[in-house]
């Protein structure tokens, strides 16, 4: 058990509570109120700032490793100071403002970018009793923030008065509308299972039942990860800033540090959603009793970075999808699967309660049933929708064979083209 002594750093709530208790004894209570707010804000600001400087380097190095190149390796040991150098460079660059742009929104959008990120960080349980505000509508709060998030990007794209920017902005809206729904439905399964919308309670449920919910809810876990990946708008779902189609989408007219803020906010969002995946599906600060020895906030941060790693991995590995492919995948595939699974989870929870089974029997049974059901559902829906897993081409073809000579437009009587040896 974690003691409540202030020097017990296994949860940082202890020193903070010690300080606040000391303040409450000696000062009027609004002092402690304001100080607690300042501590929370400072902690989040510090965490976000340090994380973003480090993560830019991590991301570039990891993607470089995946793509068999070196990545930044000159500034500082192993190139770790590269983000600092980049930030200094971006601040010195000229910050261009298009003449026709909507000046207010153009300047306001980069300033508002971080508000959703910081708000979600405020409800994340970083450790046992370690969230700035553990709202009892936490899950809904996160969904609400996620639904407002694209408005900032939209105003950035629209205010540039550039057709590519506006197209990118509209794509952001379309993407978020499509992928918010599967994310919400996946979280519905989590809420039904754990019986709470409070993030701290969701982690506590997993700790009490000694099981991470990624195994109990394999399909919602996958659906949520994919939806969040699309919502953050990172590659392979970065149709909003697809270089080959839209210039840089909503970023086209931004330069200098304003562009840097967009880049940093994208990273921050990826980190925060990694933390949400860790909270909902990987047990948050809980790790099979190890949280009694290792500080729980370290465990959570490792899991958070593991979630972030998933995004970096996807970015380094997968090619960009087309916008219609992405939207179809959400509406035709993720949403039906999520809805069916939510019904399954609800049924299982009712059966569990009615039978009064102990969790030592119910949890393993549920893991087996749900993993099998998930595989069956995915395979079944793929069969129904008619996606065949065909490997094309089955052999290596020479580039000279493919598409050089259009056979159907060849004039009649012309000689058969000779295949290259």
């Amino acid at each position: 058990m974690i003691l409540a002594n202030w020097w017990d750093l296994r949860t940082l709530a202890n020193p903070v509570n010690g300080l606040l208790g000391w303040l409450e004894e000696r000062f009027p209570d609004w002092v402690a109120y304001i100080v607690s707010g300042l501590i929370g804000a400072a902690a989040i600001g510090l965490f976000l700032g340090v994380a973003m400087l480090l993560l830019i380097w991590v991301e570039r190095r990891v993607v470089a490793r995946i793509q068999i190149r070196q990545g930044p390796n000159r500034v500082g040991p192993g190139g770790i100071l590269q983000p600092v150098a980049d930030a200094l460079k971006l601040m010195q660059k000229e910050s261009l403002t298009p003449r026709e742009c909507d000046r207010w929104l153009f300047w306001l959008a980069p300033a508002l970018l971080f508000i959703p990120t910081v708000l979600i960080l405020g409800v994340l349980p970083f450790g046992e009793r370690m969230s700035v505000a553990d709202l009892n509508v936490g899950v809904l709060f996160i969904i609400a923030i996620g639904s407002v998030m694209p408005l900032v990007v939209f105003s950035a794209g629209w205010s540039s008065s550039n057709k590519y920017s506006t197209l990118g902005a509209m794509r952001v809206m379309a993407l978020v509308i499509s992928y918010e729904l599967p994310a919400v439905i996946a979280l519905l399964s989590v809420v039904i299972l754990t019986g709470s919308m409070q993030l701290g309670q969701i982690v506590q449920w997993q700790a009490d039942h000694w099981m991470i919910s990624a195994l109990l809810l394999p399909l919602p876990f996958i659906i949520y990860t994919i939806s969040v990946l699309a919502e953050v708008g990172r590659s392979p779902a970065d149709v909003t800033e697809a270089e080959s189609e839209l210039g840089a989408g909503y970023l086209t007219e931004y330069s200098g540090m304003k562009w840097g803020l967009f880049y940093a906010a994208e990273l921050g969002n990826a980190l925060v959603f990694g933390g949400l995946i860790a909270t909902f599906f990987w047990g948050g600060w809980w790790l099979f009793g190890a949280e009694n020895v290792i500080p729980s906030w370290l465990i959570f941060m490792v899991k958070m970075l593991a979630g972030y790693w998933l995004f970096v991995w996807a970015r380094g590995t997968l090619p960009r999808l087309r916008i219609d492919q992405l939207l179809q995948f959400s509406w035709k595939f993720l949403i039906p699967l999520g809805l069916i699974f939510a019904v399954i989870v609800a049924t299982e929870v009712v059966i569990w309660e009615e039978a009064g089974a102990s969790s030592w029997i119910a949890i393993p049974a549920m893991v087996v049933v749900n993993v099998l059901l998930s595989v069956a559902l995915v395979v079944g829906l793929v069969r129904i929708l008619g996606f065949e897993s065909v490997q094309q081409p089955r052999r290596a073809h020479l580039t000279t064979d493919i598409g050089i000579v259009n056979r159907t437009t060849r004039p009649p009587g012309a000689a058969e083209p000779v295949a290259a040896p």
Partner: protein
Amino acid sequence: MSDAGVAIGFWGLGALAVGAALGILVTQNLLHAVLLLILSFIAIAGLFLTLTADFVAVAQVLIYAGAVGVLVLFTVMLTPSSARVNADTVFFGPGFIIGGLIAAGMAVVAFKTPWSIADRGGFTTTVGLIGDALTNRWALPFELASILLIAAMVGAIVLVRSAAPVDNLEADQPVADIPFDQTGEADGRALATAAPRGGEGH
């Protein structure tokens, strides 16, 4: 402490909501009006928070700022003359008069009504109560509302559906003429528009 904080929050958020609402009227740019409308929604969500109605506050952000705001944005972006100056309309005078009358009427009602102040304190949690009410006592109206929404959705799909899907696959290229190699790509649809492959000799 909490009284002072709630008072500051109430007046600040109230000023923000009313100011944003006035901005909607004053601004000449349609898109600015939409964004100010969303700001006003968010300020009203904050007002719900000062009433300790956390679920309603979050639902306000989710439904009004998120869903309705995005819907209005789409509507504005799809309006052909959305770039015009918002004040150029013949309805300015009548609209101004009617709006002023409505505002005056509401102000009179608000000041004349003998508001009763609840003697209980704030709610500790509202999610459980709302969930219980929706799924137990008011289950039937809740389900009826969902049926109504589904009917509306089906109606919308029927309205926007085109008469018959146009199949112009055959006009493109004679599918049968494309020589396929023996790799099992018997389905011509995928290749109908792609460049034909060679390689029978392998």
